[in-house]
Each structure stands twice: as C-alpha cells, then as structure tokens.
C-alpha cells in the first residue's frame, strides 16, 4: 500500500500510512531514511534532512516500510589459506534482518537470508536467498538506506535449482556461478524490495 499519487492529500493520510506516535503531525518526523521512511525510489521526493523544507506534496506516491525487508549489509571471511567470503544479510556470521517482512509474488512473506558467497575450492560463487514462500521469480532490488543508491539487482528465477540460472531447493533460492553481487556488503542498512 502507498499514498495516492494525485488528488487531495492530507496530514491524516500521511499519519495513517506511516503510523505516527502523535496526533500533531510534524512532517519532518517522516524524513527519508529516518525512523518511518525507507530511502527507496517511491519516497525520493521526501527530504532526508529533518531541517529541510518539506510539504505535503512531497508525499504523493510515498510508501511506508510495510513491503520492504531491511538489514545491515555485512561481510565475513572464514580466514585461513583458502577463505570463503560471505556478504549480505542473514548469512553465516552476517548481521540479521531488522525488518524481515518481505512482499513477493503477491504474498507477504518472511525473509531470513540474502547473501553472496565466494572463495573456497573450486571457487564457484553462490547467491542464496531464504524466504518462507518458494518458487517465485522477480528481480530483488537492493538499496542503501543512507544514500538511496541501488547497489544490486538480483534476478531470481523460478523452477528447481540446477546451477546458473538459479532455482529453488525447498525455501532456498540458489544460483551457482551467477553474477558477483559484490555490492551487498554496504556496511549500511540495506533495503530489499521484491515486488
């Protein structure tokens, strides 16, 4: 759900979309990349600064956090002579999701992992995604919450896992030898969009 992209828009509609803690709406409460609004293209008209000029018209088409998942984009190396590297959210020794609600395939689902791994012998490189709803296909877009940049677009395909292109093994989507999603370790809050 989102706010309408045209027509009349009042403070109450903004308040009710994002879930405000007070009746007195201060628009600066809803700055982009703040507590209530992710830094994604749908919200690009909303200023990031709490002191910037802001108006109701900035909120046309804006979205609350409901359909996006979020978690810090981390990095981990096993070390040793032939280390394996992991980058993303929810993978081995990587930070977990802070917001695991993930909307995909017309369904509200829960995501617990999205990461890229490489290294080891043979050095194939795997992309892994784990959700509670399987066998869908879409492009999962990854944004940095601090600056809104689109760091990666992960093309998820349907069907059974067989290498490249990827596929599903139970609730895991895997791809072997696919693109190197090196931008997943942002050290910032990553926003994951599956719809």
């Amino acid at each position, binding site marked *: 759900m989102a706010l309408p992209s045209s027509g009349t828009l009042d403070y109450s509609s903004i308040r*009710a979309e994002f879930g405000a803690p007070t009746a007195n709406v201060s628009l600066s409460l809803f700055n982009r990349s703040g507590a209530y609004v992710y830094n994604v293209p749908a919200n690009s008209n909303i200023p990031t600064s709490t002191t910037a000029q802001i108006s109701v018209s900035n909120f046309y088409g804006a979205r609350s956090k409901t359909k996006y998942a979020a978690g810090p984009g981390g990095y981990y190396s096993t070390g040793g002579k032939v280390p394996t590297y992991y980058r993303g959210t929810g993978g081995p020794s990587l930070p977990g999701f802070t917001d695991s609600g993930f909307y995909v395939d017309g369904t509200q689902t829960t995501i617990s992992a999205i990461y890229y791994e490489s290294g080891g012998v043979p050095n194939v490189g795997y992309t892994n995604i784990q959700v509670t709803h399987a066998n869908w296909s879409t492009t999962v877009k990854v944004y940095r919450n601090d600056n809104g940049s689109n760091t990666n677009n992960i093309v998820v395909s349907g069907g059974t896992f067989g290498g490249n292109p990827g596929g599903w093994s139970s609730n895991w989507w895997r791809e072997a030898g696919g693109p190197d999603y090196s931008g997943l370790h942002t050290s910032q809050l990553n926003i994951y969009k599956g*719809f």
Partner: protein
Amino acid sequence: MDLSDFTKTLNYLPDLVRYTDDDTGEDKTAREVELTWKHNSLSVSELKLYLREGHKAWDDKIRTREQEILETWMTELNYDPLLNVVKDKKIVARGQVETQEQIDNWIKPNSTATLNPTEVDKI
C-alpha cells in the same frame, strides 16, 4: 518491574484517510484509528499510535509501538536504558543472572557438559 497492567483503547477518528491499494491500483479510503496506551497504576504518560484501519502492517506496527511505549515508560520511571531493558513487558537489568545454571556455568564453565569432551589425539 512489571509494566503489563495497562489498558489499550481503540478509537475511530471521524475523517477518512486516503491510500492506494497495491493489488488493484485503486485509490481508496479507510477509517483512521487512534490507539492509546494508558497504564492503570503507574504515573506515566498516556501514549498513542495513529494508523489506517486494515493497514497491511497493522499487527507489526502496533507491536513495535507498544515496545517503544514500554521503553518510554521505563525511562519515565527513572530506569537507565543503558542498564535496563524491557523484556516480556517487564523491566529487567541487562545481562541479569536469572537461573542457577547461569551461576553454575560462571563458577565452573561447561559444568553441565553442554559441550562433549574432545580426545587429545583428535585435536
């Protein structure tokens, strides 16, 4: 300290709010709801949440706001949030030792043999 003795009330506001339904792309209206948390015995603030009826994240937003409110009350009651945390609607000290097993494990780590011993020649 137990904070669970509070009343949560739900009040429908008179004006309708607008939103776009993602599934159909239609602009729709809904009632706006004012939720109020009021503690029944402690002298703490009455706090609120405003949300659209039928919001897809209805439960999640209420759960998140309730935890935020309990943490606000904890601060109002002069508990230091660096030393305390709200867990299951109760204020508890961070890292507090609660069970005999924790004490035993501190005195003699692995006393309950959580980890099996490893033979020296296997290392």
